[in-house]
């Protein structure tokens, strides 16, 4: 599973991209975020405030209950500020 981070969350995690193999009990976006938070202090700092975290699965916005699986491209980023 490929994880991409953008903007402030990329800076807090300390990497733009990582490939992870979460355990089988990680089945949803919410499970994945909780599991990622345990990976480092940077991950924890980036993901602790759920209000500032948006997730896309395979380039479409995803809610906390959306399933995730091996092979997915998961992007994690703050609320967008374009335009």
């Amino acid at each position: 599973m490929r994880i991409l981070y953008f903007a402030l969350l990329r800076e807090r995690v300390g990497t733009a991209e990582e490939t992870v193999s979460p355990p089988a009990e990680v089945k949803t976006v919410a499970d994945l975020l909780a599991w990622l938070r345990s990976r480092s202090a940077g991950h924890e700092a980036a993901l602790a405030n759920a209000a500032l975290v948006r997730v896309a699965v395979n380039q479409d916005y995803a809610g906390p209950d959306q399933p995730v699986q091996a092979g997915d491209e998961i992007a994690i980023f703050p609320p967008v500020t374009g335009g």
Partner: protein
Amino acid sequence: MTVRVQQQDFDTAAELDRLTAGQTRIGAAVTFSGLVRDFADTAPGSTQSMTLEHYPGMTERQLEAIVSEARQRWPLEDCLVIHRYGRLAPGDRIVLVITTSAHRQAAFEANAFLVDWLKTKAPFWKLEEHGGERRWVDAKESDDEAAARWQR
């Protein structure tokens, strides 16, 4: 319909001409240009640069989805969205949205819809520099409210 996400500048007049040339069914073309201003929440003149980061692939997909939605809701002849990324200076163009239709109301409304929605859905993030300090721009509630008025 066209969506372009690019680093380079664009020529607003040339894009408008291209969209309307030889078209006799278009009665109205509405052009929105978004520019980098030199102040944010801080004092005027304080912003030195603005860098736009995006998510290649998803950004285009989201913009295309927003454009499709606009075309379903209003009788548009055509529509163009250009959004830049990279490092920009105050006064630079960031975004161009042109909508064309037989009548002005559809062109105006669809244009406002596109701008409101792209601000809340398209994955872009602004990083401002002022006085040697860098700061990621916070999302604005007022932008969410502007987009929400198009919910139905």
